[in-house]
């Protein structure tokens, strides 16, 4: 399932070339190829699909495929809605891990 290039770059469908370029540069700064080669490749592919107005229109007009759940999942991953577990929750999970794993090799 391909990820929507607009979503991946974090740009609106009705945007201009410069905004797309800026978004692309920001993304590759965030995910440098030397550390995140796969992620970088996806970003580059997405950029190549929406780099110019013509390419953006081609994608919007002729792209078809399955439903892209990436934005939905991305909503789950949105930093704005990030939750913060309490110390009690953390302790509870840690206790569960301790009990379930024991000491390895013993």
């Amino acid at each position: 399932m391909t990820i929507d290039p607009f979503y991946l770059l974090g740009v609106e469908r009705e945007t201009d070339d410069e905004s797309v370029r800026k978004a692309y540069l920001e993304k590759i700064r965030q995910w440098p190829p030397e550390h995140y080669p796969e992620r970088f490749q996806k970003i580059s592919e997405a950029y190549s699909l929406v780099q110019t107005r013509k390419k953006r229109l081609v994608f919007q007009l002729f792209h078809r495929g399955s439903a892209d759940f990436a934005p939905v999942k991305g909503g789950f991953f949105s930093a704005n809605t990030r939750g913060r577990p309490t110390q009690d929750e953390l302790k509870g999970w840690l206790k569960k891990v301790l009990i379930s794993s024991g000491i390895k090799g013993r």
Partner: protein
Amino acid sequence: MAQKRRKKGYSSPPRPKSSEGLDHLRSGHFKKAIESLKLALKEDPQSADLKNLLAEAYVGRARELSDKGMGQEAAIMLERSSLLTEKPPDPVMLFSLFLKGGQIDRAVASLKPQKEKSETGESLDAGPLGEALAGLSLVGCAEVLTLFDENSPFVNHHHTALEILQSYDRGEDDAALVLLKKLPVGSPFKNFRLFIHALILSASQPETALGLLAKVGEDSFFHPLAQAVKLATASDPSQIDALSSLSSPASDLARRLLNIDADALRTVSQLESLASNPDKLAKALLKPGLEPLFPREVLKALCLPLLPSAIGQLEPFQQRFGHLPPWEVQRIRALAMEEQNRWSSAVAEWKKAADNVNDPMIKALIYQRLAGFPHFQDSRNLWEMFQSGGREKNSRADFLESSLRYDPKDRDTHLALIHLHGKKKNNPKVRTTLDRAVREFPEDREILEAAMDATFAAGTFKKAGTFAEKILSFNPIHHRAHSVMVESHLAHARKKIKERRLDLANKELLVAESLEKKHARSGRVQVCQAMVAFLNGQGPEGEEKLRLARSLPTHPLETELMIQAEAARLKVPSDIVKKNELTFKALSKNAVPDTSSILKLIQNIEHYLEEKSLPVKHWMEILQPLFIKAAVLTFTMEERRLICNILLENNFFNILNHFAKAGQKQWAEEGSFIFFSLSAQSEGNVLAVRDGRIGILEEAMHSTDSRLDTRTMGNMEKFLSASFLTPRRPVFFDDDDDDDDDDVDFSCMDDTDFESELGPIVALLKGEIESRVVREHKLRRKMGDKKYGESLAKELAQGLPMGKEIFGEIIRKILENNPLPDHGTKKQSEKSDAGHRSPRQLEIEFDD
């Protein structure tokens, strides 16, 4: 018999339980080992060896149970083992087993003897045990602290860790970060430090957080929790599926960090599982129950790309999310038609979309897409095309032109048009297309190259030379541009020679000579110079130039043919070049053929055939013995096919017969040479091939090499379709179809033109009307209606979507190609070919 008796009487002595238990122990079957060894120990209760083995089996079983999460039972096994060996069990192991059993107090208590040994409890705070104790101290197990001195580093670190957690809980991240520095690298709380540090930074500094999480060791208790934080920090939606692979507490932590509603997650997984069935997925997405989980806009965005593959959901979609603009609906329908390979309907929908949309760029893109549509493959689509309005402007060139109307600066479209028009020689559209493209992109090398090639192919050498000159100004070593420049001057020189303006011709030839690279000279310039010299009455100079041409490393026959061609082309009086013709004849008689020279020669012949004024047939008569000799040479299959195709296309049937037969000998199973052979024998007239052989031919087409070139395939189809006996592949969207004239004048067409225009129509209609036409034809002839063809055409044309003239031509063509057998012929035909006639032919013959 003896064997049977032995088998019956054989009974092995019972194995001692001890050895059985030992075997089980070795093979890791601890439960069985315990059972056997217990029995053995009953028999020999004092055996120290048996006790040790049983203790070992208990330890193994304890590990087994522990791995299954049955810590309590495992601890019991370990205690039994220690009773047998009369040694205390390994406290760390016991700790681990009790921990796994959820008996934290007993787990900690099991470490007390260890503490008593070390006094200070130092040995307990190292490694995984130390980390486990640190973890237990954090989760509220106060007993752990009793294992250490009050002032021990462990207890100090424990207090710091608690303070960190409290600061974190209050949201005082800065204070927590300061406190984290108090936990040294060697502390049993080191992984806690890394984990909590990463957790604090995960939102603000994800990269640093990921770096910290990577340092949490795989054997650490914090590792699964660190994985959860890593997943949440990476913010990679594609990793959401990894959530399910996390252990339960880690998954809980990840979902808590990501604020993922468990129901939403489950629903997404369920929806994703429908991805292979767009219709089902669209239906599921359109159910009203999803709105509480997903925003309306999200659902709409999810559903929209599915619609072309689930066109039935278009209406429900519009009812749910409101009406889409008309062009958008047409776009979706067009994509749906494309998916179903209903190309004509797709064309119609795209055209409607283009008409309704306002954005010229979108219009242009739609036409570009239409230009890239594949050829029609079946008559069903053709019929749709007729229904949609008959002969519309639906060629690639038309679509590209339409695209340029809305986006005149689209370089790729200009280029595509040049390539498209450039394929056909003498195309008047080439000039317009080129001028427009070069005007838009005067410095574009690719456009200039395409323009040069197109003009060169069209024979407008002067124009090609202009483009070549421009290309050479960018790239002085452009090989093709050099050749075109030479050709351009040569063409100009030829023109001057024909006008007998020999001085000017000489000048042009000198320029051409100077441009020609010495190692790549073909001799044409020298031959032309020789002709000029002859015409000027300078025989020796002419001979000298010819000598120079003959000295070049081309095949002598090739050079002689070139001399003949130039002499004919430049209309040099025959008495001047008579000597050369004799040389040519003598050479062709005595030359020993070889594959490369024959190939080159036949290609040159094909090239010369394009110039109608050249006496190629005369040359072929001279060369015929040589070619017949060459037919038995060992060519590759592709080479032989190329030669056969050239010979067939230019009606050199005698030579073709030799080449085809030699091909059949070399590749007996290869169908294409059967075709060439039959074509040669019937002299290209399929009607002269008997019915039975037509079957062979059809079989040959199927059995032919799968890598068959399109040229051979085209020739086969053309040959067979001449009789309308076999289906012909419709080629409505012809790449080369650049005529935009709707009203074709069929009366001035020759057979080839007629077929190229009407072939698809005939292919479509023949099955439906042919039998009726023939039947009517016979009936009316009997009734003495002499104008049957015309009246029949008028009648049958009623209600058909195309013009009467076209239809009339179709019927006339069918009649011409289906001459009615007279009675004598019929009987003869029945006698000779009874077993080989096609059902259709039988139907025609016995219809009376």
